[in-house]
């Protein structure tokens, strides 16, 4: 489903991604972990071309983007359709209700029939457990609810791949679970997902593979069990010590 070769990204002088290679099968869930500034967000954004990679190729769902060549706006748009992004801070449109947020993509952009799109949007709201919140504005929703609307908005685009950038790290501790539950449901339905998160319970329970990124490279990869319990690299061990419930302090 996803095939990434030699992906590079620089901001001016600063090389943030130093050659990423990755293949993801349809239906797989990949969890990406790593210290702040290691390039996790940049990596995800490159897959959705929110940042234009400097070099490399990415294939998603059969469509290939070669970033060593210039791309037209149209090509970018087409490629971007393959995936949908869920943001750390939800980024819902505050002036639209939950329903309108979800409809914006299908109706305004994809010009789908409004009645049908609405039916589908309501089904999505139901799926994320918010059928009663269709007419609420984002500010009337809790963080967890907003993030679930964010997931529904992404799903409404019918992407082949879902990208999550720390979807729960802005949430109060007791609201994290509800969002992770929705994500786990998606995994089980066979959605292909790339998830940046430090939530161990999600990684352990849902990831097919865990990548540890550092300084723009994938330093270690393997099953959750391999990476969390038997890390090979010093850097991985150090990082896991910092974020895990161990007795470093």
């Amino acid at each position, binding site marked *: 489903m996803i095939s990434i070769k030699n992906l590079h990204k620089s901001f001016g002088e600063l090389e943030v991604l130093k050659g990423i290679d990755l293949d993801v099968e349809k239906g797989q869930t990949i969890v990406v972990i790593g210290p702040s500034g290691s390039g996790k967000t940049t990596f995800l954004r490159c897959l*959705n071309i*929110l940042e234009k990679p400097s070099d490399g190729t990415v294939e998603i769902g059969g469509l290939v983007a070669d970033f060593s060549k210039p791309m037209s706006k149209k090509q970018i*748009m087409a490629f*971007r*359709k393959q995936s*949908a*992004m869920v*943001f750390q*801070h939800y*980024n*819902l*449109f*505050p*002036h*639209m209700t939950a329903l309108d947020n979800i409809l*914006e*993509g299908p109706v*305004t*952009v*994809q010009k789908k029939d409004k009645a049908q799109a609405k039916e589908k949007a309501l089904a999505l709201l139901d799926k994320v457990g918010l059928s009663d919140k269709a007419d609420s*504005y*984002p*500010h*009337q929703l809790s963080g967890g609810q907003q993030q679930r609307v964010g997931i529904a*908005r*992404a799903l409404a*685009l019918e992407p082949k791949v879902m990208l999550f950038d720390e979807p729960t790290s802005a949430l109060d501790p007791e609201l994290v679970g509800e969002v992770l539950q929705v994500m786990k449901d998606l995994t089980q339905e066979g959605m292909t997902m790339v998830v940046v998160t430090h939530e161990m319970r999600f990684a352990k329970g849902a990831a097919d593979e865990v990548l540890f990124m550092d300084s723009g490279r994938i330093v270690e990869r393997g099953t959750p069990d391999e990476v969390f319990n038997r890390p090979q690299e010093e850097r991985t061990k150090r990082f896991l010590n910092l974020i895990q419930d161990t007795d470093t302090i």
Partner: protein
Amino acid sequence: MYLNSIFSNPERLERLGDIAQSSFLPLIEAAVQFTLPLSVISFILGLFLAVVTALARISTVRVLQWIARVYVSIIRGTPLLVQLFILFYGLPTVGVTIDPFPAAVIGFSLNVGAYASEVIRAAILSIPKGQWEAADTIGMSYSQTLRRVILPQASRVSVPPLSNTFISLVKDTSLAALILVTEMFRVAQQIAATNYEFLLLYGQAALIYWIICFLLSLVQGRLENRFDRYVSR
């Protein structure tokens, strides 16, 4: 001194009352016929211009940026009176003659356009980057993003400073007299010129301006409330 003489002099008091009464209608008439339409039309046109200018300023095209910059700098850096003067008395010397009312509308719109563009630019820049990205992600084009995501939110932030711009505009329309538009302040001057009660007539005009501005502040409050529907406090 003078005021004493007014109150110790019932005749004069009566005269002032009469003048105030009889001049109120013509003032209101002028306000309704010229001051208000001139303000409203110029404001609306100026807003369009302001949005375009703001977009030019934040665009990545250097030429557009510079055109916008120069326009804003010239308009904000020079007195409105001189701008109107040049527009109305200067342009005919190069063969362009515009009628008073349209010339006033052009002059004031250009003015509003420059001032409001800064407000709108700031408002657009205040919208979190995440909103642009969310719009990108769902596949919106630049113009769709602007129309459906950015400008509606920027409007909310812009209401108070734009109402300032409008308030200034309403009062600035008094300069239209210079280019032959008989707006309210001109009428006050006309009336005062015959009875020499400038203080009284100017005071009356000020009162009407104040009422307009007050009504405007009510509208502003309404608009803010409407927008607040989707903004938490």
